[in-house]
């Protein structure tokens, strides 16, 4: 029997969709019993959402005022205290999970497998490396727990089910005061979320200015898409950092990805390889983005994008 503990990610009382994907990955472990751990100031609402995921057999709710906003140094000792008996401890490959899970792994003296994209057995996983240019099959020792981050772009969210019972737990452990939350600047959230959107329109360096980048935003709004950007566009200040797509930004898997004025560097492609359909608009017919695009259109984006919009408006 494998006992998988999934660490829930949440904010403002809402469970992050990445957690439902971790549950799907956990369910791929043979003979798995899945518990979701919610660490929060209160957390009752989040626990109820986690309890309603198919495959979850119980939710552990550890309420502590210090647990929100989430800081790895504060959460990790609690998780390590509550994890004994678990064969696996999973978190999402979001910045929350990437920050937190290695700290848990060190406290448990356990190996961590990052970005699990497939489960081949309880101790055998597949993960991308070299910016997605290679897929590694990794085997870990079975004599201790396995910590992993789950590559969210590779998994579908667990369906609705349950509800599973919610148990209150408390990790009786000293929490450090050496790390303190100050603030977070969230971007505008009236657009679909980049990581879960079915459609994404991304702009690159070719946009040339923050003012011109509004073209991408307008197009995205027109087709109810999230907005993304290449690193070059973020570095140049056309778009905020949280919109960066790629090896060092967000790895996404929308139904439709439209790359506008993006050359298609390997670090960018890594972030979109799992998209169902990739569309590229670029004036350079040799741009590498066309190697991976299902539909390509060679030409000037400043002419083409408005044209697409008026075609859509007309129909």
């Amino acid at each position, binding site marked *: 029997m494998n006992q998988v503990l999934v660490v829930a990610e949440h904010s403002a009382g809402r469970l992050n969709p990445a957690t439902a994907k971790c549950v799907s990955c956990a369910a791929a472990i043979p003979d798995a019993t899945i518990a979701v751990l919610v660490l929060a100031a209160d957390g009752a609402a989040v626990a109820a959402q986690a309890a309603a995921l198919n495959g979850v057999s119980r939710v552990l709710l550890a309420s502590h005022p210090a647990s929100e906003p989430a*800081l*790895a*140094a504060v959460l990790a000792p609690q998780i390590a205290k509550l994890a004994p008996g678990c064969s696996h401890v999973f978190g999402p490959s979001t*910045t*929350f999970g*990437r*920050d*937190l899970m*290695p*700290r848990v792994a060190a*406290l448990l003296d356990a*190996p*961590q497998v*990052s*970005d699990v994209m497939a489960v081949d057995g309880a101790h*055998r996983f597949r993960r991308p*490396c*070299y*910016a997605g*240019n*290679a*897929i*590694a*099959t*990794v*085997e870990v*020792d079975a004599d201790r727990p396995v910590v992993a981050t789950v590559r969210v772009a590779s998994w579908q969210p667990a369906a609705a089910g349950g509800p599973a019972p919610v148990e209150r737990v408390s990790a009786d452990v000293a929490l450090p005061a*050496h*790390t*303190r*939350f*100050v*603030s*977070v*600047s969230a*971007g505008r959230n009236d657009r679909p979320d980049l990581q879960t959107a079915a459609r994404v329109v991304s702009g690159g360096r070719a946009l040339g200015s923050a003012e011109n980048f509004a073209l991408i935003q307008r197009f995205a709004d027109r087709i109810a898409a999230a907005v993304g950007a290449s690193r070059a566009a973020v*570095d140049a200040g056309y778009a*905020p*950092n*949280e919109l960066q797509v790629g090896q*060092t930004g*967000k790895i996404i898997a929308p139904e*439709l990805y439209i790359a506008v004025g993006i050359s298609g560097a*390997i*670090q960018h492609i890594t972030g979109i*390889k799992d998209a169902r*359909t990739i*569309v590229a608009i670029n004036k350079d017919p040799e741009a590498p983005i*066309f*190697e991976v*695009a*299902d*539909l390509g*259109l*060679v*030409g000037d984006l400043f002419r*083409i994008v408005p*044209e*697409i919009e008026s075609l*859509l408006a007309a129909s």
Partner: protein
Amino acid sequence: MGKVLVGIKRVIDYNVRVRVRPDGTGIVTDGVKMSINPFDEIALEEALRLRERGAADEVIVASLGPDDAQQQLRTALAMGADRAILVRADGAPEPMLAARALFALVQREQPTFVIVGKQAIDDDASQTGQLLAALWDRPQATFASKIELSGASARVTREVDAGLEVIDVDLPAVFTTDLRLNEPRYVKLPDIMKAKKKPLDVTDLATLGIDATPRQRVVRLEPPAQRQKGVIVKDAAELVAALKQKGLLA
């Protein structure tokens, strides 16, 4: 005043198109250009700026890797680091080993800051800094795009999924660098000459008292599934028609 310890990993240069060996045992490395992991150049640049601002008086660079990693350490010395330490290890050491090696050096050198990259672009693990911070029982500020010092603490801006998060951490602490933290300086020719005289110590895991047995093994590498090359449409009207036909646009 204190020391800064910077992790320098030798990796395949980010411009190289990485290829898996046909037998699935590894990556093609013959004749391939090797470099400092790009995030580690940023880590070193930040360390040099801390020293230049008077917040530190010595920058130590350290690498766990093969003898050849001395090349990257020499480059780091040429960029401006004061001294280098190579911890010799064969193969591709896993993040936990890198963290243990860095932790052994932390105990020896007692730095105020440890700066590493947010990820190595070969294993893409994004673990080492966090593992080290936990072993050391000190704060971590990962994915940093801004580090400001104020007395015995640092205010760090972090690139997180939601946007930019700001946290305060007491020193000593571990920082991991994001791409927008700074732009690394270029190495000048005279500095390369000077770097040859800077100290570069070589040690190994056994001397540091570290068990090198890996906890995870890569049993196979394979190329990723290739996407089919698609079609080039002639104009916007054809594109919109194709998207509608696929049911992707209404």
